[in-house]
């Protein structure tokens, strides 16, 4: 065959496969939304699931997912910032830095089920926190922390080094420079990365099955006492999340409309993750404009 002919065939194949991937995504999203959207209603989003009857909702699961996400971020973000700032601004090239980098890489490569098992062993059993929201949040912290460290490190590294020098020349301490000069510049990148990682946390199930548990107690949404067992805010109660619920309904669901529930819950999950993605993009652009253009500040 002539090289030109081969070239044409190869190019068409590459284009075909690339477009095939686009088709996969369109198909996936289309299928989930097509199957799921018809099942989503206010009632579905707010009512509790039914064990064997049809018509159950995912209200507590949705709430658990969101609450768990908030709890996880409250723990992870400050820790990730600390370690990330160290890696970006303080760590000098050497054995120790290389070792910490390796740790972050290994931690972020652990399968989430292994993280979940570790949580089961240490947090649920050893620390005796049981299947609870807080156990889940701590497991998700292990899962999310390495990512947060990377996000922070990259965000700080992308700040022009002249900013730091200007701070030094004014006689500021390094920590002051980091927190008041560099941090505001790095913040948009950090927030964008955090929102994206939040999407990942929101959809995580394997790390939660054996930590946050696979059940949710009867919640009383009028009870806002965080220590009461039926309060939705109680961090020591079991908390089945939306993602875990999808898995459970698929593998052991007894309700006659189990497939519809799984479809509806999947749609909710995917839409939420999409919103996180779009939110991250939008927010990144918004902050960038706000920081660089002549809009009024403070």
């Amino acid at each position, binding site marked *: 065959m002539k090289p030109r002919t081969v070239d044409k065939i190869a190019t068409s194949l590459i284009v075909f*496969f690339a477009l095939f991937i686009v088709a996969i995504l369109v198909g996936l999203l289309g299928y989930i939304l097509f199957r799921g959207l018809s099942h989503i209603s206010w009632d579905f989003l707010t009512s509790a699931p039914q064990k064997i009857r049809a018509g159950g909702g995912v209200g507590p699961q949705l709430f658990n997912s969101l609450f768990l996400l908030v709890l996880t971020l409250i723990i992870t973000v400050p820790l990730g910032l600390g370690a990330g700032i160290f890696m970006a601004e303080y760590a000098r090239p050497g054995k120790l830095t290389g070792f910490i980098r390796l740790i972050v890489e290994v931690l972020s490569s652990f*399968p989430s089920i292994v993280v979940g*098992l570790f949580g089961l062993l240490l947090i649920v059993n050893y620390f005796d926190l049981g299947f609870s929201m807080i156990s889940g949040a701590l497991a998700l912290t292990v899962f999310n922390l390495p990512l947060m460290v990377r996000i922070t490190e990259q965000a700080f590294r992308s700040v022009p080094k002249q900013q730091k020098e200007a701070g030094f020349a004014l006689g500021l301490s390094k920590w002051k420079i980091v927190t008041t000069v560099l941090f505001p510049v790095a913040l948009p990148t950090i927030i964008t990365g955090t929102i994206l990682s939040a999407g990942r946390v929101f959809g995580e199930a394997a790390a939660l099955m054996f930590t946050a548990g696979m059940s949710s107690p009867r919640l009383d949404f009028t009870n806002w006492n965080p220590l009461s067992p039926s309060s939705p805010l109680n961090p020591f109660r079991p908390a089945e999340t939306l*993602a875990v619920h999808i898995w459970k309904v698929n593998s052991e669901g007894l309700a006659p409309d189990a497939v519809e529930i799984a479809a509806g819950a999947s749609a909710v999950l995917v839409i939420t993750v*999409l919103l996180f993605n779009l939110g991250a993009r939008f927010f990144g652009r918004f902050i960038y404009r706000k920081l660089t253009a002549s809009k009024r500040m403070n």
Partner: protein
Amino acid sequence: MKSKKSRLEKHHIEDLVGRSYMAFCVLLLIVIIISMVYFVASKGLSTFITGGVSVGEFFFGTKWAPEADTPSFGAFPFISGSFLVTLLAALIASPLSICAALFMTEIVPGWGKKLLQPVIELLAGIPSVVYGFIGLSVIVPFLRDTFPGQGIGVAAGALVLSVMILPTITSVAADALAALPQNLKESSFALGATRWQTISRVILPTTMPSIMTGVVLGMARAFGEALAVQMVIGNAPFVPKSLFESASTLTSVITLSMGNTTMGSSYNNALWSMALVLMLMTFAFVGLVRLLERRNKI
């Protein structure tokens, strides 16, 4: 200078506070990884130390009967299942991913990237339970109608995993291709080579180590993925005779059985041994990635 008199001035205290906080965060990372390795290893090794199961039986025994009167703990079906779905998924996903990366960087660098970048990000963002749900409601029925068997099995698992690792391989490959010096391509074009000749003889051979990094990262993800695989693979504890037969992986059997066994039983310990295998494989994958990166630098 006056500052000599009192050692602890405001800026010294600030720096001290900052450094202590960062040290705490970094130390926490180290404690997490050490305790993870310690706890999973001590649990996982007890099968061999106190449980009296020989290493050979565990790794190569094909009989998995943990609850029989004379229990046997041959984990070969799970180990081989994990490797099988991982390799198949990489075989399916790699060509597709490389085509997508070529499409983004070589064929239509402008809008190709604009089109595929968000597609890849969204594919990466879809939670694994949703992949499992779609696998169960689309791929499994399709396989059941087209091939012999029940639809569930190794093929279904590998297909679901291949879509899940597409984004990983594609983004690494695209980065590698984009980092290629422009003059390398130009000199090939200048010799009268077609685009495909340039791609196949210059571009791909030069970037192969980097692309392999992406493939290994994808395989690491596939090997550790739990729920999506568990939902479609059938979970029979046997080495399958065909791709359309029900099988199991390390992650799927842990997912299914961990909740139903009592801590400390030899059944439970065997599951921890499998978690240890998962952990060791993570080390192996990270090591392999580092090896490839080092080779790539030279």
